[in-house]
């Protein structure tokens, strides 16, 4: 009887342990990927700020009405 109870407890612990492990593996990589993507995008935007500056310089200024 004691053996059966021990086996049941061990099985329950194993199931509980497996569940925790699975959740960690599913959630963490998504956060890491998004984090890195955002960081890289920001770095690139900062680096290539001269592209935006040039586009702004070349875009026609709105005409002002003269009375």
């Amino acid at each position, binding site marked *: 009887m004691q053996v059966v109870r021990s086996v049941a407890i061990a099985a329950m612990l194993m199931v509980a342990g497996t569940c925790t492990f699975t959740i960690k593996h599913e959630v963490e990589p998504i956060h890491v990927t998004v984090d890195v*993507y955002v*960081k*890289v995008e920001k770095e690139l*935007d900062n*680096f290539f700020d*001269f592209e935006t500056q040039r586009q702004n310089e070349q875009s026609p200024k709105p005409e002002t009405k003269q009375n």
Partner: protein
Amino acid sequence: MRTKVHVLCALSLVLALCAGNALAADGLTKAEIKERMKNRYPDLVRLKEQQILGETNQGMVEAVAKKGVQESGVAQIVNEENADRSALYALIAAETGTTAAAVAKINAQRVFQKAGPHEYFKDTDGIWRQKKNMKVGFATPDSSQ
């Protein structure tokens, strides 16, 4: 015998240090790369507007057709631009803890989003298409990074 081993070790160390110094001398800083790319940018824009150059989904520039390479200076611009981009991608990858290839793909997507409808892009099949004829997702970053 032991002396020989010591001499060989010392020589290897000296060679390794020399190689390291040479790399450091050649390796440009981000500010230096930016200055070079900024100076080259007007030429790059002109060649893209003339549809001589296009962007690949690997974050590099290439001549759209063979005739483009024949124009004087185009090959040099392509080589210098791609060398600077490679160095930049490696630097950003080291800073952000990812790979240079992943940075290159994110930049390819950034360039695609900012491009005009007539600019050329090389799709995953290696075919040049104008932006207006392409779907929105040009270079999907590798999700495994």
